[in-house]
């Protein structure tokens, strides 16, 4: 019969020898193995304090991006909420007033924008649906909390800071549009 892998090994069903039937060599070997593991460096990551590094394209906690001038990109079109399979996103739209042009890029903006992190499945559909490149998933995590209220992330937690140095880098997650020359046959 053709073996499925190259590691396949024929196992003989012979009788055990006398020393094998004593079991002591096997037991001692087992004890040796567990003792070796006892002194090995353990692999646990003490999660809330220590985080393991994620790949830059990891789909974690969302960010609401600002544009280069520090204006919120989100225009509260609601496409992300429609795209969301877990129905985790809710928002309330509002009209931009005169004098708020420095805050919001379009005439319409999200007065409130909430993502329920307990519902979210981190699929990234919102990101795909967004026509304004406003929402992105990042390699950050939604941290644990003692009550459910803490998992409803509002704009204060989602929108990135205005300060240029503190912006969240999502360049790795942006899928670049193919140039028209490349698309042409």
């Amino acid at each position, binding site marked *: 019969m053709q073996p499925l892998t190259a590691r396949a090994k024929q196992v003989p069903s012979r009788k055990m020898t006398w020393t094998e039937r004593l079991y002591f060599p096997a*037991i001692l070997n*087992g*004890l040796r*193995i*567990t*003792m070796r*593991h*006892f002194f*090995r*460096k*353990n*692999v*646990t990551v*003490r999660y809330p304090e220590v985080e393991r590094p994620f790949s830059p394209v990891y789909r974690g906690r969302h960010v609401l991006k600002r544009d280069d001038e520090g204006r919120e990109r989100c225009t509260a079109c609601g496409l992300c909420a429609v795209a969301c399979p877990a129905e985790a996103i809710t928002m309330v739209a509002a009209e931009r007033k005169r004098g708020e042009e420095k805050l919001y890029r379009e005439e319409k903006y999200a007065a409130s924008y909430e993502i329920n992190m307990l519902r979210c499945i981190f699929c990234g559909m919102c990101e795909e649906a967004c026509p304004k490149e406003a929402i992105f998933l990042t390699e950050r995590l939604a941290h644990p909390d003692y009550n459910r209220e803490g998992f409803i992330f509002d704009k204060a937690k989602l929108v990135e800071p205005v300060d240029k140095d503190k912006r969240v880098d999502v360049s790795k997650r942006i899928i670049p549009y193919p140039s028209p020359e490349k698309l042409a046959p």
Partner: protein
Amino acid sequence: MEYSFLIYKLVLILFIFTVTLLIALYSTFAERKVAAFMQDRLGPDRAGPGGILQPLADGIKMFTKEEIMPNTSDRLLFLLGPVIAMLTALMTSAVIPWGRDLMIGDRPFSLMVANINIAVLYVFGVVSMGVYGILIGGWASNNKYSLLGAVRASSQMISYELAMGLSLVALIMTTGSMNIRDIVEMQHGFHWNIWYQPLGFLIFIICAFAECNRAPFDLPECETELVGGYHTEYSSMKLGFYLFAEYINMFISSCILVSLYFGGYNFPFEDKLGLSANALSVVGTVVFFIKIFLFIFFFMWIRWTLPRFRFDQLLRMGWKILIPLAIFNILITGGIMVLFK
């Protein structure tokens, strides 16, 4: 005189009781840590620094859990089960010599509760009563799994007590005493019984594992087959008593193993240190506890290394291997004693 004696004994009993409970409490923690380390994990580390308060948290959890009494159970026996398990687990510590006599003024204070000349027999009697806790608890639960666990426990105890007793017969033949204190005194320095009775020790420790219902002999609990075995129906502190009794048993069997085979409070070169009698006594007690902790660690080490026996394998090993081996050991010991004495 009489009153001071009574008060001293009472204080000693209370002290040993507390120490036993404390060690059992932290054995649960140590077990989780040892298991974790052997599996390349970290173990509980959230409660207090390094998780040192974890046993307290577990205890509070146990106390505050809902107490469920199955309505088909026998009420009295259901309550009696954990009580007996705990009682017998704690009773054995009475005959263990924790150290040499302390001299305060010119009066000796014995560091053991009862210096009786049939201590080994007493231990056996109490240990064999311990199975009633499991048996009664499992029977009174009126649950198939519990009953199976209880039946397994009783047949396991009977099978392994025989081999255990026989392995000790050889030891008693060489020491000529059933008094644990005398046995320990005979192992002065490095003349530990393990050198004279290696086979007996091997049989004894295997049986000790079985008597404690520890892995690889934890068939009465056996989560994978019997839900929880004899304590399936137990909850809250009654369950806590059962689990706790297991750890106390482990501690006590380590004590007995050390006293009988590993020299108790004796350690090599103890006469050459030039210590006063009292200081030597204290050091001896410390050494005794270090040995006990090493044995408790060994119990855990085995548990996280070996898989569980099948029940027929367990009984075959008890009746067909250990008992003949123990009898063989007695014959060898007797032969050597006749030849060389």
